Structure formats: C-alpha cells, structure tokens
C-alpha cells in the first residue's frame, strides 16, 4: 500500500528561467547562443540578482541579447562592451554588470578594451562566446578561426602565413594582474554545459564579492556558417576546437577559490 508520503507528485524540475523573456530568439536552429543565454538567466535567478543586474549586449549575433534577458540592458558598439560596462559599473558599483561578447567582438575589434578592462581589474563579468567565426555578418574568418578553417573570407582555409594564428583569449587575459577569474568551458555536451553553468555562477559571485575581473569563455557552435547540422557542429567543437582551446581554469585567485 502506498502511504501518503510515498505518493508521487508530478513536479516541475526544469522550466524557463525568470530572467529570460518568454519569446522566441532569432538564433538559428541549434545555435549555442541560446544555451548560453539560458545558463546566464538560470544563474541570475539562483543568485536572486535580477533586479540589480545590467546586461551589455555586443554587436554580433547576440546583438539582441537584451531583448531576451528580462534585465535592464544596453547595447554596445562593436567590441566596446567592456568599456561601456566600465562606465556603467563605475557609476553603479553595487549593481551586477556583465558583457556578453562574440569572438569577433572581443578578440578582434575589441582587443584593447577587453585587455584593459582585465588589467584594470574592472569588477565586471564577461561571457565570451567563442564560435570561431563572425556569425552575424555571414561567416567570415574570426581571429579565433582555426588554422585551415574555411570561412567566407578564408575560402581556401585560414592560411596562417597570410592570416596569422588564432588568439587564445583566456590564456592572454589570465596574464593580467587585475583578472580574478578566467576560465574556458564548452557547450558541446550536457556535461560541459553543466560545468559552464557552474563557472558562470562563480564568475558572477566573483563580481558580487568585489574581487575583480571575471570571464568565462564558452566554446560554441555556429551550425549555419560552419555548414553543419547542429549535432555535427557540437561534434566539431569537441573534436576541433577543444584541442586548440583547452578547457580549464586559467586564473582563479585564492579569494575566488574560497567562493567555489
């Protein structure tokens, strides 16, 4: 006989997070931008900071991120999100300010801004979507495109003799004395997605605790411009990007370790 205590109740264990608007995004089918959005929103919900968080959207496929987060938000010029976030954070030191940036945005045109935000130890959080391509403009080579990768502007494959080598931003930013938490995660599998969420949580906690600059780099897919199905695109992340961009913790200062 089933006692009342043993009675099973059908309970929601996963639903759309509060901090995410209930609207359809413009992202392509299977694009991991959607996953990253969700993880951020979940973390904002869990930390209970929806009312004091400000998003800074990039120029890139995520240009409308502010429409999807149910948060106050601004839209920065291409690559300048860290500068804009600096302006916001300095005059609202008790708010949580994060930027959401693509690899063209952060690692090409915005190189100086991200490096100096980290050097200043700017107390902001950066979510860096590295999909090895310029998604929004239709698939040109990004600074992060892999050697040999075919794109619309490297049609014969990225030739390192002409176009140079990819930048590994987490490694570079970890070198900055002002950086408190810099890690690389991936969105190519459920396991990695879960780890990514944890890192995003730590990054936000780093900021809330006033410990300085935090960044989570997320290896991501662009099925449309890579020309793969969404599952194949995730496989490409795992097989090609992860070896080039090793996952791991590049900088975790002691005070952050204490948070984790």
């Amino acid at each position, binding site marked *: 006989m089933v006692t009342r205590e043993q009675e099973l109740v059908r309970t929601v264990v996963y639903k759309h997070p509060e901090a995410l608007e209930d609207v359809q995004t413009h992202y392509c089918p299977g694009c991991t931008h959607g996953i990253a959005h969700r993880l951020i929103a979940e973390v904002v919900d869990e930390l209970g900071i*929806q*009312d*004091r*968080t*400000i998003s*800074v*959207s990039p120029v890139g496929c995520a*240009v*409308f991120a*502010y*429409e999807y987060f*149910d*948060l*106050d*938000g*601004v*839209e*920065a*010029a291409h690559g*300048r999100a860290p*500068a*804009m*976030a*600096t*302006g*916001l*954070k*300095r*005059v*609202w030191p008790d*708010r*949580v300010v994060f930027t959401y940036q693509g690899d063209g945005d952060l690692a090409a045109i915005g190189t*100086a*801004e991200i*490096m*100096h935000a980290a050097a*200043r130890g700017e107390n902001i959080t950066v979510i860096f979507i590295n999909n090895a391509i310029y998604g929004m403009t239709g698939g040109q080579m990004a600074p992060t495109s892999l050697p040999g990768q075919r794109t619309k502007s490297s049609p014969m494959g990225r030739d390192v003799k002409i176009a140079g080598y990819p930048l590994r931003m987490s490694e570079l930013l970890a070198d900055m004395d002002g950086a408190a938490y810099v890690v690389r995660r991936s969105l190519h599998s459920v396991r990695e997605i879960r780890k990514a969420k944890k890192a995003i949580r730590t990054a936000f906690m780093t900021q809330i605790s006033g410990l300085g600059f935090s960044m989570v780099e997320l290896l991501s897919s662009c099925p449309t411009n890579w020309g793969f199905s969404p599952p194949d695109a995730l496989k490409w992340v795992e097989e090609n990007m992860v070896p080039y961009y090793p996952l791991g913790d590049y900088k975790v200062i002691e005070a952050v370790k204490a948070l984790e």
Partner: protein
Amino acid sequence: MSAELMKGNVAIAEAAVRAGLEAYFGYPITPQTELLEHLSKRMVELERVFVQAESEVAAINMVYGAACAGARVMTSSSGPGISLMQEGLSYIAASEVPCVVVDMMRGGPGLGNIQPSQGDYFQVTRSAGHGDYHPIVLAPASVQEAIDLTFEAFDLADKYRHLVFVVGDGLIGQMMEPAVMPEMRPIRPRPDWAVSGKDGREKHIITSINLGAERNEAANLRIQDRIRVIRENEQRSLEWNIEDARILVVGFGTAGRVALSSVKMAREAGLPVGLFRPITLWPFPEKRLAEIVDGGIQAILVVEMNAGQMIDDVRLVVGHDVPVSHYGRLGGAVPLPDDVLHEIEKIAANIGLTATAMAG
C-alpha cells in the same frame, strides 16, 4: 566669488565638477591635457569617478555606459582623439543619452600640430559620426565663457537628452584669464529612464539598433523633431556695434575675439563695422544673423581659423543677397587684429565705404 586667474582647461574641468560631474573618462592629448590632469586630482578627492582610458575609443564608450546609467558624464579631447570618438558619438546620439564632450581644436589634418585651430567646425557641427544628427555645439571665447557654457552644457544635455560639445581651441585651453567659478551644485539624482537594474519596474533598454527601415526611420524622426526644437529654441550669439553697421564681421571663439579688436580699430578709424559672434555653432544663430543682415548690412567678412567652414552657414542664411568673404588662417595659425582690419578695409573699399565718408 571673487575672480581668480585660471587656465581655460582647468576652468572647464572645475566648472564641470561644480555642475555635478559624476564621472570623467578621458585620454591625454595636447592642448587639453590639463583638463584631464585637474580632474585626476579633483574627482578622486571628491570620491567621484575618474578613469584614464586606454584610448579615446574606450573613453567615449565608457562615457556611453555612464550616460546610460544616468550619470552626469564628460570626456575631452582634440582633433585626432575626437575623430576616434566618432563611432561612439553616433551611438550616444542615436541612444538619446546626455553627455558633454570638450573639444580643444588643434591644427589638422593628421597629427598636424597642437596650435589653436577651428578646423573641426564641420566635424562637430555636421556629422560627429555617421548618421543624421547634430550635436549642440557651444563655443566660448574666454575663460569665463568657457566656465559658464560648460556649466550650462550639462543642463542642456539633460534637457534634450542630447550630446553637447563645448569647443575651444588651444588658446582657450591654455590661456589664463581672471574668471569667477559658480558655486558647487549637488549631484542631481539619476533620471527615471536610466539603466540601473529593473528593481520593481519594467526593464529599461538603451540601444541604437533599429532593425527594419520603418523602426529606424521612426527613431530618426524622433531625433529630428528634437533637433528642430533645439534649433528653434537654443540659438545664441553675441554682437557688438551692430546698430549702424554696414559691414558685418562674423567669427566664433578665438577668431571672434580677435576680430573684436579689429572691429574696434575699424570703428576708431570711422568704419561702420559690427561683430557677430555665434555662441552656439549648432544650432547656428541664423535667426539673429538674418535680422542683422536685413538691418542694412552690405558685406560680410567671416573670420575663421580654418579654410572656410562656418562661412557655409553664413551663406546659407544670406544666400546671394550680400557678398560674403572669408579670412582664414590655417593649420594652427591665429589671425592677427591688424590682418583682419586690413580685410575689413579692403571690403569697405570694395563696397565704396570710406572711413571719412562715414565718420561723423
């Protein structure tokens, strides 16, 4: 409130502080560096925000962020730095957030030099980045005016949620003059529309992207409407010896100030000359200029420290009705009173005015 001898750059910086400046972001460049230097001390003393940015590009985007947060915010630069800010300025204008930018013009183009110039008149009044809009542009000619206009610039920026330029040149920035500082004002509360975290209200978004021609046209029309109101209400100018003038000298900032000496000399020589000095470069004081010209002006001399930029605005007002000529010094050179006087005399001769004929 007694007068102090103050350098233009420092005076502007201090005036901004007294107007309730909450945050300054900038990058050093001559001839405005003392402004940044003064604030590096003052803002920190007052526990306000001072950040020396990694570049002018970063500085203007920091300004953009702080402006979205509703803070009173300012940056300052000169030629090359202002050029680098063009994209950010356009975003700020499109987003309808208020801020103040100080431009101490120097000799261009390129690296040019650091001598006083007015060569960026077109850049500040016409475009200041891509897209359709005009910033409000205020042009002081003395340290006192620099203080007063800077102080007011913040209110104008707030009132219209618009970008306001205070433009000077190396002379205005480097010169010391006696001037009086306004009292320190308290920092005003952040406005309602600001981005601050959506605590207990609908979320606020500040963006400049408007996909679809219709949406962006609507946004542009809103800006144009505002610009029309500004144009209607905010034209300002000063004038000297206008009443019986037959020749009108027009010049702004340092050029206008120098021209005043020449006009006085010309008057002493018996020539019926007046001076019109625009204070707002945009909106250009076209209404008052048209009235003055209608009052019997037979020729106009535009004096600028450039190859002829404001002269377009003068000609747009007067059309072909009155001959308009230009005296310009370029690339950092400053016109001398004697030379301007000489130009006035030439014009007087051309239109058949002689000093003796008019004297008495």
